């Protein structure tokens, strides 16, 4: 269909154009906003490629939380608030030779990827036949969830470990860094939060539940719940205090712990690690997913908040 082809060409061109614009934008704030819009367009592209799971992850994490994370750092770099101008890092201009070498290297790597992509046979069956064959044993009916939580569960476990490592590193790096807290956002926002936050929590739970049979699952649900927590932090409904640290640590670790325990627990009696007994596969996957969702939500919120809650920071909050 020609109209749809024109749409695809226009969308693909705008994705590339926006990527270039993001890199060329002078103002750092404009760069971040362009990056957020890039994420939205990317999600549309993924919807066009029949990848709703990826589009879901992209809008939740790529366009949503990454944007908030970047804005928060920019606020720090500009000295407390976003509106305060100046303080942007100025750096030495790179000379022509360096830029030439950079372009050459980037071009070579892109050519390599291009050859790999264009050289591979297109539009022919890949691994989907294997996935379809194994679906009855997976315990779920949605192929992507089956791959994530069953067939390639090692990858997913490692991914949860990466998130855990990230929050540990961020807490270490930010140790002792003080910041002015965000102000109250007013009654209109409070009213909005009262309606929106419960709706968002329900949406997160729905995404988790639907993941077994349709696009959705632990990461998307975790990202939505993480966004709820970020809103709570911004509006100061949630105020991290030193007393919360044991709970926070426990929540960060819970997903990884349950995942690893189940993986090892099913491994006896002639089974491999991660080879769930088919009769209980759905229960086990849902158990893992629920815990991983909670962990991811807490971790993403902690990554946004940055520093570990310490007594000094809360003491300053009253000033």
């Amino acid at each position: 269909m020609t109209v749809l082809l024109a749409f695809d060409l226009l969308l693909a061109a705008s994705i590339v154009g926006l990527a270039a614009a993001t890199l060329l934008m002078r103002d750092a704030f404009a760069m971040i906003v362009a990056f957020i819009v890039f994420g939205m367009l990317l999600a549309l592209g993924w919807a066009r490629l029949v990848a709703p799971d990826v589009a879901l992850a992209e809008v939740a994490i790529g366009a949503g939380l990454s944007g908030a994370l970047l804005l928060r750092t920019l606020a720090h770099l500009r000295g407390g608030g976003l509106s305060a101008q100046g303080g942007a890092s100025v750096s030495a201009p790179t000379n022509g030779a360096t830029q030439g070498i950079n372009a050459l290297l980037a071009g070579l790597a892109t050519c390599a990827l291009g050859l790999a992509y264009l050289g591979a046979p297109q539009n022919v069956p890949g691994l989907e036949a294997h996935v379809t064959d194994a679906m009855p044993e997976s315990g779920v009916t949605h192929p992507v969830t089956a791959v994530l939580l069953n067939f390639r569960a090692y990858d997913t476990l490692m991914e949860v470990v990466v998130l855990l490592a990230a929050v540990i590193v961020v807490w270490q790096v930010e140790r002792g860094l003080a910041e002015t807290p965000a102000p109250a956002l007013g009654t209109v926002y409070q009213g909005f939060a009262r309606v929106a936050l419960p709706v968002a929590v329900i949406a997160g739970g729905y995404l988790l539940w639907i993941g077994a049979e349709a696009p959705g699952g632990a990461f998307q649900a975790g990202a939505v719940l993480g966004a709820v927590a970020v809103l709570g932090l911004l509006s100061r409904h949630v105020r991290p205090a030193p007393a919360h640290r044991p709970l926070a640590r426990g929540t960060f670790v819970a997903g990884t712990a349950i995942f690893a325990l189940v993986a090892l627990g099913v491994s006896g009696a002639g089974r491999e690690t991660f080879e769930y007994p088919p009769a209980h596969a759905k229960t086990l996957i849902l158990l893992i997913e629920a815990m991983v969702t909670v962990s991811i939500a807490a971790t993403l919120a902690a990554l946004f908040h940055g520093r570990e809650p310490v007594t000094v920071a809360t003491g300053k909050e009253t000033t």
Partner: protein
Amino acid sequence: MIALSQATIYGLAGLAVFGLGLMGVLGAAERLRRLIALNLCAAGAGMVLIAAAWRSPPAVPDPVPHALVITGIVVMVSATAVALALIRRLHSLETDTDD
């Protein structure tokens, strides 16, 4: 010759985004810009993967690359958060010594 399917269109766009992002990673001056470039680079690679997983309509796409890219997105946001913490820390250290 390659047929002009939506997979080819977005695959080539993904290649371009990957290349642009890589150039940004290597050449960008500020740290924040370099980090965003790295994110673009990852997004471009993801687009290529998802384009490779596409099958013409009656058939459904290969779910394995989809799962890989979702994992990639989550790993990328973790890496971004760590890099941002480092950027904030470096900035504080620099402004402290300047005073």
